[in-house]
């Protein structure tokens, strides 16, 4: 049995086994849509908001999903196991790499 995980942002969807983390299912199938970071609940780049469906969460960094947010349906895709089909929205993102980010830092520091 698999559940269907639908990403609202991109319209992409992928299947996920009941005991599998969303992000790993996506990566294993070579699908895209959710940013992939540490895959272990620490970095927050895979943060999603679950719009509908049932799921359970493993341990995750409270720096990225507070208890309140968890109650409000926010989750880390790498720590989230579905128990039904899910519709999710991607909230997390990869911060810009050193290159462009530094350009911004340079501007700020020089007051340009």
């Amino acid at each position, binding site marked *: 049995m698999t559940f269907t995980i639908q990403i609202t942002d991109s319209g992409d969807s992928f299947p996920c086994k009941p005991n599998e983390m969303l992000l790993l299912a996506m990566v294993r199938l070579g699908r895209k849509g959710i940013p*992939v*970071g*540490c*895959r*272990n*609940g*620490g*970095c927050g*780049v895979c943060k999603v908001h679950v719009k509908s469906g049932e799921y359970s969460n493993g*341990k*995750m*960094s*409270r*720096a*990225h999903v507070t208890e309140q947010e968890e109650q409000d349906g926010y989750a880390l895709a790498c720590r989230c196991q579905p128990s039904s089909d899910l519709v999710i929205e991607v909230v997390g993102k*990869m*911060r*810009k*790499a*050193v*290159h462009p*980010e*530094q350009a911004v*830092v*340079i501007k700020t520091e020089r007051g340009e």
Partner: protein
Amino acid sequence: MAMTGVLRPGHVQLRVLDMDASLTHYVERMGLIETARDEQGRVYLKGWDEQDWFSVVLREADEPGMDFMAFKVDSTATLDRLEQGLREFGCKVERIPAGELKHCGERVRFDSPMGHFFELYAEKDFKGNGVGTLNPHPWPEDLKGMKVNRFDHCLLYGDDLDGSVKLFKDVLGFNETEKVMAGPNGDFQIASFLTCGMKAHDIALIRHAEKGKLHHASFLLKSWEEVLHAADIMGRYKIPIDIGPTRHGITRGRTIYFFDPSGNRNETFCDSYDWYPDHPQITWTEDELGGAIFYHNQSLNERFLSVVT
């Protein structure tokens, strides 16, 4: 070369979300050895070839990252002298009594311009490397997983790079072996590699918007074959790899990066060069940053650059 002052990285305390999962990772998979636990529930580990009691301390918490990194100094006189220098530099300094970390002497803890906490200490109990000192074998039996040799360095992210580089060079006597320069005139430093001994780096620092972040804690292996073996362990146990096996231009390390069960990045690597204080400093420029970081494919990787704990 006579080694005085700050000798080497001595320990790092990492926050983990789940202690049992972390011990499976650090002990069974990476091959660190458990040597103590304390009342706070912290677990102490060491690489097999380290002589002191511990080099990694794991503390269970609700967010991952690094609590502090410590360096061993050659004597209590040096500890006192450096403490004075840190105060004059403007660091917030505190003395932590011997035994607060088991088997460790008094520590001098201080903050830094990039937002990380560091410690210096002169004494730690001797544990030995498991092969003894009389007619020793080259390695002990029963090592596990990747069989990491020792804790080697950390790469840290934070905002005031210039301030932290100054602290390490001017107060603690580190030498800057390599640096990365960016900006329109190439005069804006974005990364620094610093050594207190003869390694290409004992700590690396990268400019980043947030304070006090950990990019990775690194562990030494002794050959490329061992790096590939580490990669096999990661495949077998589905440990998420960040990138590698590959080589860095910077420091020449041959390396693989992966994540612990709390999302802290680890590195296992081999090779580098010997550095003497009369060697010239190496500079990398922004336009060659791809190869500076990943020498084989000569291109940057967004996750490697931006994912931190």
